[in-house]
């Protein structure tokens, strides 16, 4: 084994294969560009997005790519369902119940690193995403089409941020009317549900919405603190947020462990959502005395909502969330 010289034949074969491959790789996949790009229409709009950048958007936007799930929903509401969506399978699992995907958009890769090739291949008129990527990534996207960056979430005014993002999308794609209708419908639904909650005698009931995660036997709880979208939504129909802790400045998410759950006041309802079989609240926590001793748990006030409602979504997701919430808490007829 000490004398290992590469014999000549494999080398020749390699060269032959490379040559063959090189020949096969000749040709083009797209005809050369012949004319200059069409001049910008006179009806183009200029909008200031969440980065503070002025984005010039051509008139009559048709093909839009959405790189975050909230953007997908806003675009559908505005009447221009995206032709490309990041992580279609994930959207279906986590958002598909609240705001089902319209049409059959092309998958453009993950939300973290969407495929520039796939997006360019769709030749969109506009790309909509949410704050978070770095400038280099925006620069690559801007070479394809104007990029409209949404705020996504702001704990200072969660509902207002949701509306503002939706309205920005509406202006960008010329769907202002559809957007205003959707907002009016959402607010009307909120009023109806507020009445339902009132009738059921549930007004003022404290709720604590939380995510539970298990990794390697360890349990982590993420409560939605004041400033998160969900508490703002359910407070608008008459509930109050039963989680006393603080959250981050953007999404209003807190973090705690099982011990921290003892901060919940008696009479609080725990509400959570997960997808599929993983359910920390019925599996891992079922044998933990801190959890089972909680007055909330003793009283049986723990509710799992249906899978697939995006908790950081828009008016459709929030409508589905509030409907599910009221259905779960109302006494059975």
């Amino acid at each position, binding site marked *: *084994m000490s004398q290992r010289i590469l014999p000549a034949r494999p080398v020749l074969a390699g060269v032959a294969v490379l040559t063959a491959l090189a020949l096969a*790789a000749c040709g083009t996949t797209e005809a050369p560009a012949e004319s200059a790009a069409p001049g910008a229409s006179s009806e183009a709009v200029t909008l200031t997005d969440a980065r503070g950048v002025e984005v010039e958007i051509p008139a009559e936007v048709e093909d839009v790519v959405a790189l975050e799930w909230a953007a997908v929903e806003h675009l559908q509401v505005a009447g221009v369902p995206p032709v490309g969506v990041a992580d279609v399978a994930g959207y279906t699992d986590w958002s598909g119940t609240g705001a089902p995907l319209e049409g059959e958009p092309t998958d453009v*890769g*993950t939300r973290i690193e969407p495929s520039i090739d*796939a997006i360019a291949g769709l030749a969109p008129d506009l790309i909509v995403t949410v704050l*978070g990527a*770095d400038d280099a990534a925006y620069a690559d996207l801007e070479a394809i089409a104007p990029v409209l960056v949404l705020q996504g979430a702001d704990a200072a005014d969660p509902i207002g941020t949701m509306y503002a993002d939706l309205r920005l999308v509406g202006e960008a794609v010329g769907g202002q009317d559809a957007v205003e209708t959707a907002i009016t419908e959402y607010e009307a639904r909120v009023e109806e549900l507020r009445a339902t909650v009132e009738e059921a005698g549930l007004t003022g009931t404290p709720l604590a919405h939380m995510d539970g995660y298990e*990794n390697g036997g360890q349990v982590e709880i993420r409560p939605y603190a004041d400033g998160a979208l969900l508490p703002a939504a359910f407070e608008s129909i008459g509930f109050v947020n039963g989680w006393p802790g603080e959250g981050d400045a953007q999404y209003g998410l807190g973090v705690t462990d099982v011990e921290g759950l003892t901060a919940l006041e008696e009479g609080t309802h725990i509400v959570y959502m997960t997808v599929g079989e993983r359910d920390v609240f019925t599996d891992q926590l079922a044998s933990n005395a801190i959890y089972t001793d909680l007055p909330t748990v003793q009283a049986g006030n723990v509710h799992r909502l249906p899978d697939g409602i995006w908790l950081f979504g828009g008016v459709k997701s929030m409508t589905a969330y509030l409907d599910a919430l009221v259905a779960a808490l109302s006494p059975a007829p």
Partner: protein
Amino acid sequence: MTRIRPGGLALGAALLVGLVALAGWHATQGTTDLGLRELLGWLGGDASHASVIVESRLPRIAAAIVVGLALGAAGYAMQTLTGNPLASPDTLAVNGGASAAIAIAAVAGISLPGIGGAGIAFVGGLIAALAVVAIGRGRGSTTQMVLVGTALALALQSVTTVTIILNEQETAGLYAWGVGRLSQNGIDTVAQLLPIVLVGIAVLLVLARRLDVLALGEEAATTIGVGVGRLRLGTLIASVALAAAAVAIAGPIGFVGLAAPIVIRMVARRIPGAARHVVAIPLAALAGAVLVVGADVLLRAALPGTASLDVPTGVVTSLVGAVCIIVLARTMAGAAETESMSVLGGRTIAKHAWLPIVIAAVVLTAMTVAAVLLGDRLLLLGDVVNWLAGRAGDAVRVTLDTRTPRVAAAVLAGVALALSGALVQAVARNALAEPYLLGVAGGAGLGAVSIITLVPVATGWLVAGSALAGGAIAGVLVLVLVGWRRLGSLRLVLTGLALSAATAALTSMLIVITDPWNRGKAIVWLSGSTYGRGFEDVIPVAIAVVLSLLALTWMHRDLDLAQLDEATPRLLGVRLTAVQIIALAIAVVLASTAVAAIGVVAFVGLVAPHAARAIVGARHRVLLPLAALLGGSLTLLADTLGRTLIAPAQLPAGIMTALVGIPYFIWLVLQAGRSR
């Protein structure tokens, strides 16, 4: 016969007292206001707070102590076993295997009945360590095993990151677990694994006297009549079981299995009798427990209530452990033990050096062309011709405008990291040395993340400059802490390692605190990616590579001598210190600019030089060009596959390098082992 001298006893007693005091303080901390008074009340029979104390406080302190004991003892035994002071549970891929198993189980929805997630971590860690032992078991030297283990650990870490990227929602929380976290859901996990830890430590104590002999050298041990093979196997199984139990309880708690034993080794040298394993293993175990409990106390004292939950304890153990090692390494007198680098360079695989270099150059060229064509959108050469002529259609133009800088970034960063790794290995004379190890890559990453956090609109040059500054500061810091004249010593390796652990910890802390939901940022700056790179991001590393190649053609013979030992080069009239400083300076510039271009990539700088050494030997005239070509090829292949395999989804280059490189590297280690 096993008389324990007072020095060791005193140290042990001091550690024990410290541990008890810390544990008492620890039990009063938590996410509820439940302090000393309630705790004493509970001891006195008041049951009103019993559930919080029994299900949360006590499990956490028990977890901290048991994990610390297990890691300290396991690390000490592994270091004796491998004869390498850098060996630790990470080195044998225990932590990597556990993380990967947890991640895969999370996505696939697998759960083991009865024992749950901790059981999955234990099994994963054990399988990975056994694979390392099976693959890397060499005749004569354990360095092979250490190399295979380190490489496999990086690959398994990549598996974990891949599952996190592709299943963002399902794996939420896994990142924090992967850095090491003590939170417990009841006492069950600790109670199930405690017997394994106790038995593991007992086995090591039984083997202690024979380990003393093994530490003198294998030949000495055989002469005296110690069955080295059986001893090795027993020690290995015991220490791997300990490490796997620790990772099952708390996730991969950073750096304890390395820092605690090293601290005890350095202190024990000054205490007569304390260096014997029967004393040192318990001391290392106690030191591990003090380190874990102390780090957790510190974390929760600094960030009371729920604020501490955002920062995994593993981050703090890394920081505290790093400070300990740096301080002790400075005061260490005779830390000159180094390891021969000839393990993989003794006999080479290829007979002629030029043939592999030519083949590697052809392969890199072919791969570069292929990389430009491959991707989510498959292009043909005609497209490239159109693009070069400026008459390509929009889709092709955009695709090539974004793809070509990524190809360039991958190749150049790979070349830079490989060269940097070869230089660091030559200066440090340690098989595990790489740019990451010197803290340079970590410092550069920290610099880049800091500027991005402080100045959200930071551009390519600002980020590159900041990365270079961070890398340079880390490099200078290492040089100053180690001292100009001791660059070839173990002190360099230890200080660099501590600094790199500290910078990695600070980087994750900065990201977790300032931008907790930004996974993209975390991935780029903790594992490396070419996504979104433009040509302007690549220029600094291109300049660094060209200048370094010029410098290296001038000094490659000095490097050949510098890698041998301290004495030979001086006898032959080489100004060793000057050569080492220049080589390190070049390594710092190369690594920092590479980090600025594609983030912190760990695998290339370690593996490419080793691969080159196995193929053509240790002469830098041939080693450096081949290492550079291999490094460029590896990173490029990783990036191309990452862009292509599961398109339109893509995997970052920094994660793919280890996955792509590991099969080749293991094969190489086996070849080199066989031809000896």
